[in-house]
C-alpha cells in the first residue's frame, strides 16, 4: 500500500488503468493531440542527437563536411595519448563529483527531510531557506562563490581570518587538491533542497501507524528509522541517484563560472561537458566538429546507458522489496 517511490507506482497505476481504458479514438484526433509535441520533441531534441552520430563519422574542414571517416574521430579519444588522458581525467572528475555530491547532498537532504518530517518550530522557514539556493541560477551561484572565495577580496577567507581561523583561510579554488571538493560543496549548497523535498514527499507517503506500531513494540527511534523508514525510502533514494547522476554528468555552469572554461587550476576541475564545450567551440583544429561530435556520442552512450541500467536495477530491487 505504501507509495514512496515513483517508478513503481506509475507502473502500478498503468496496470490498473489499462483495463479500464478502452476508447479507441479517431486517427485525426490522435494526430491533432500528439503531432505538435512529437514534432517539437523530435526535431529539436532527438534529431540533433542523431545528427551528432552522423557528424562523428565524417571528416571535417571547419564547417565543411568531407568524406566518411569511419571511426577516426573516435580514435582521437580512445587511442593512447594526451586526448585520451584528458578524457579520462574529466571522466574521473565527473565520477568524483557524482560520488561527492551523493555523499554530501543526498545525506544532508535525507537528514533534513527526516528531521523536518516531525513538526517543529519554524519548519516552513527552514524548508524555504534550504530550498532558496536551488532557485538561483547555477551561473550566479558560480560567480557569487568565486567572488566570495577570492583570496584577495573574498568574504570567506576574510571571515575566517576575522574569527581567528587563519589556518583555515586556504586557497579554496587555487589548489588542485581543494578545487574539486570546493566546487562539489558549492554545488551541494545549491541543490541540497532538492533531495530534501523528494525525501520529504516520500516520508509523507509512509503511514504513521508503521512507526507507532514498532514503537509500541519497544523499538528506538533509530531502529524505527533503520528498519522501517529507510527501506521504504529506497525507491526515492534510487530516483535521487539517477537524477543526480544525469545532472552531474551534465554539469558545466558552476564550474565555468568558478574555474573557467579550462577547469583550472591545472585542469583539476575539468569535466566532460567542459571538455566537450572546448573541443567544439574553442578548438583551433579544423576537424573540431567531428572530434566534438565523437565525444558527444561517447558521453551520450555512457549517460543514457547507465541511467537505463540504473532504472532497470531499481525496478527489480523494488519488485523484490514488495
Amino acid at each position, binding site marked *: 500500500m505504501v507509495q514512496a517511490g515513483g517508478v513503481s507506482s506509475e507502473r502500478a497505476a498503468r496496470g490498473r488503468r489499462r483495463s479500464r481504458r478502452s476508447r479507441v479514438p479517431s486517427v485525426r484526433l490522435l494526430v491533432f493531440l500528439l503531432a505538435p509535441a512529437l514534432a517539437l520533441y523530435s526535431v529539436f531534441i532527438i534529431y540533433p542527437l542523431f*545528427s551528432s552520430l552522423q557528424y562523428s563519422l565524417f571528416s*571535417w*574542414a*571547419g*564547417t*565543411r*563536411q568531407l568524406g566518411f571517416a569511419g571511426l577516426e574521430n573516435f580514435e582521437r579519444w580512445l587511442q593512447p*595519448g*594526451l*586526448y585520451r588522458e584528458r578524457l579520462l581525467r574529466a571522466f574521473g572528475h565527473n565520477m568524483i563529483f557524482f560520488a561527492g555530491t551523493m555523499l554530501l547532498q543526498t545525506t544532508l537532504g535525507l537528514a533534513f527531510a527526516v528531521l523536518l518530517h516531525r513538526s517543529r518550530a519554524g519548519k516552513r522557514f527552514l524548508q524555504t531557506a534550504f530550498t532558496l539556493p536551488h532557485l538561483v541560477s547555477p551561473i550566479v551561484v558560480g560567480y557569487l562563490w*568565486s567572488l566570495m*572565495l*577570492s*583570496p*584577495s*577580496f573574498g568574504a570567506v577567507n576574510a571571515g575566517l581570518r576575522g574569527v581567528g581561523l587563519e589556518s583555515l583561510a*586556504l*586557497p*579554496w*579554488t*587555487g*589548489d*588542485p587538491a581543494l578545487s574539486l571538493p570546493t566546487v562539489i560543496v558549492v554545488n551541494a549548497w545549491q541543490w541540497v533542497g532538492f533531495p530534501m523535498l523528494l525525501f520529504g514527499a516520500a516520508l509523507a507517503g509512509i503511514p504513521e501507524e508503521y512507526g507507532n506500531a514498532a514503537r509500541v513494540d519497544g523499538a528506538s527511534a533509530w531502529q524505527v528509522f533503520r528498519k522501517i523508514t529507510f527501506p521504504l525510502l529506497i525507491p526515492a533514494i534510487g530516483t535521487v541517484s539517477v537524477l543526480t547522476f544525469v545532472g552531474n554528468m551534465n554539469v558545466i555552469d558552476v564550474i565555468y563560472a568558478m*574555474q*573557467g*572554461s*579550462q577547469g*583550472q*587550476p*591545472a*585542469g583539476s576541475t575539468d569535466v566532460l561537458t567542459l571538455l566537450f564545450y*572546448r*573541443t567544439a*567551440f*574553442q*578548438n*583551433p*583544429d*579544423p576537424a*573540431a566538429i567531428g572530434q566534438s561530435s565523437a565525444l558527444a556520442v561517447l558521453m551520450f552512450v555512457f549517460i543514457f546507458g547507465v541511467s537505463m541500467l540504473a532504472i532497470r536495477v531499481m525496478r527489480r530491487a523494488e519488485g523484490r522489496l514488495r
Partner: protein
Amino acid sequence: MGRRTAPRTLTRNSASQISRSLLAAGCAATLALTACAPSTEGGSAGDTTKLTVWSWRTEDIAGYNKIFDVYEKKHPGVQVEFKAYKNTEYPTILQTGLAKSSGGPDVAQLKPFGPIQAFIEGGNLTALDGKVDLAGWPEEVVAAAKGKKDGKTYGVPFAIQTLHVLYNKKIFADNGIQVPTTWEDLKAAGDKLKKAGITPMATTAKEPWVMGLTHEIFGATRMGGDKFAQDVVAGKNDFTDPDYTASLQTVADLKPYFPEDVTAVPYLDAQALFSSGKAAMYPGGAYELGPFKKADPGLDIGFFDAPLPPGAKMDKPVTPGFADGSYGVNAKSPNQKEALELVKWMATPEFGQLFADELKQISAVPGVSPKDPLLAEMIAKYRSQGEPYSMAVHFGYGEPLGRDAEGEAIASMLLGKMDAKAAGTKIQKDISAWFKPEE
C-alpha cells in the same frame, strides 16, 4: 536576423531536406519582414551597401563608429555597422557567424594564428593575396593572418600588443624605488615592497594564458627568444631543453612577489589588485591600460622591460609582442567588392592613425605612432628591440594551445607539484599531441 535582403548563398551542409523547405519559408518570412521595416536610406536600399563588421572589442564601439564615419564620407553608398561581442565568447560567436548561410558579418576581426585555421580550411574566408598589399609589413605580424597549410593571407592585422612590466609610479616613488635595470634590482624592489605590505606583482596562475604571457615577459631572454622556438619548429630542439626549463624556473622563482595563493586569484582580481593600488607591478600587455584607466583614471602607470635574469641567453632585454588580430572578409558575404575595399583601407596609414588616435592602441600599420605617450613609447621599444611572442606565433595551432600548456605547467610548479624539468617534459608532451616538427 534578416539584416540583409540581398540574395544569399546556402551552405552545402544545411541540415536536411525538411529544413531546406523550412529555410525557404524562413527566407520568405525574413524578406517580408525586412521589406516592412523602415529603411534608413529612404527605401533606396539598392544604392546603399551596408557592411557589418564584427569585433570582440566591446570597449571600442564608440571609437570605431568615428573611424567608420570617416570611411563612409569617402565612400558614398557604403554604410559600415560595427558590432562587438564578448571577448571570451567571440570565437564561438564568430564560428557560428561565419558558418551561417546568411546574417553573418561581411568583415570580421579574426583572432591571430591558430583560431583562424579552421575558418580558412572551411572556406569561410576570402584570400587577400593580390587584392590587398601588405608588402613592407613585418613578417611575424602578417603571419598572424596566414593559412598554415596554403600560406595565403586572409586578414589585415590591425593591432600589435606589446608585453612589459607595468608599474604604479606613485607606489614606486613613495617607496623610493627606481625602475629596475638588473635582476637584483627587481628582486630588491620586490623585497622592499613586500616589507611595506604591498603586493609586489599582481598576476594570476589560475588562467593559464596569463602565466604564459608572464613567462614570455620574464623568461624570453633566458630561453633565447624566438630563436629557441624556431629550433623547436625545425625539430632541432624541444621543450625539455635545459635553457627553456631554466626560463620556466625564472618565473617560478618570482613566486614570493606574486599575490598569495596565486593559483586561486581570479584574473579580475589580479587586475583589481593593480588598479586599486594594492600591487605595485603588473606583468602584462598594452591592452591592460584601458581597463586600468577605466577603473581609476588617476592611476599613473609606467612600464619597463624585464631585466636579464641570471644565465640569460640574450645580452639585452627584449620587448615581446604579437599581432593581436586581423580583419578578414567573410567568403559568404554578398558584398565581396565593398568588403575588400574596406579591408584594403584598413591597411593604409590613414586607418592606422585613426585607429591609434581614437582607440588608444598600437596600430599594426607600419610607421604609425599613437598619440598617447605611453603607447608611443611601447611601440618604439617594440620596433627597436621587439621579439615575437613565440608561443602564439608558433604553437597556437592545436588543442591544447602552447601558451595554455606552458601556463598550466608553471601553475603546477608554483604549487610545488612539479620541478622545472618535469614541467618541460609535460609541455613537450602536451604540445606533441598535435604539433609535429618540420622535417
